[in-house]
């Protein structure tokens, strides 16, 4: 399945969830200070493990950075 993760094309297995993407990006199951948007909508942390991906999804995995 082809998706976009943080602006880059990625291939995920069928049945993959948001939690799988988070693990792939951060190397952790429950990283602190991380939030996820799926095609523009916020996915609450509690829903990561049961939110499946769909072809063409745009996933943003975000965290704190220095800023004004």
């Amino acid at each position: 399945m082809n998706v976009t993760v943080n602006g880059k094309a990625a291939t995920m297995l069928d049945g993959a969830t948001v939690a799988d993407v988070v693990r792939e990006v951060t190397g952790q199951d429950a990283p602190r200070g991380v939030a996820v948007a799926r095609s523009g909508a916020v996915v609450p942390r509690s829903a990561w493990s049961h939110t499946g991906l769909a072809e063409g999804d745009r996933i943003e995995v975000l965290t704190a950075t220095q800023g004004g």
Partner: protein
Amino acid sequence: MFRLGGRELSSRLILGTGGAANLTVLEDAIVASGTEVVTVALRRVDPAFASNGLLSVLDRCGVAVLPNTAGCYTATDAVTVAHLAREAFGTDWVKLEVIGDDRTLLPDAVELVAAAEKLVADGFVVLPYTSDDPVLARRLADLGCAAVMPAGSPIGSGLGIGNPHHVSLIREAVAVPVILDAGIGTASDAALAMELGCDAVLVASAVTRAVEPARMASAMRYAVEAGRLAYTAGRIPKRFHALASTVDEGRPEL
């Protein structure tokens, strides 16, 4: 003591974390500033992510995190980023920025009001970065923002407070805290903001991009305290002509 969004703060200085050369410099500046609240932005996880070093520094300093919506140009984007920040950091606080123009980074009033209305309805403590327009500030306060944060001058410009009279008018127009945000260049700008009646000052670039950030953070700390003391002390009125401080009575005839 000063009350912001239901929280008691003893420091009237809020530090923005953007622009520091590295986390050691940032940590030293936070400690020297005496601040209790610092801003952070939300950006894509770096591929080399191990754990968030910035959040560890903020934990160590014991400061509260105030997420911003920097880089958003529409109300829709800003509202989504605020919700993402709430998920990431577990805070209802948001420094709401909806930018209208990438040259000045001044706020887009129409989008700002729309975003503020939605976030207040969603239960956020909304701290909007706004222009120095007293009418807009009143509208933001009336719709339920927890403070208003007028720009003294464009973000990162260091030009100070371009229109002090408008800052005074904003102070008069709203009952919520007024936090001078953006444009501060050096300590005297922060002191002036406080002398005009602002409740607090938010400084980022002036500290993080100073030659010696921790030293400037310390300067800002004292400037904010001095400005607040001067405001509450009640300054003398300005006069066109001199008024001798020494009495004329008893002057010798020589």
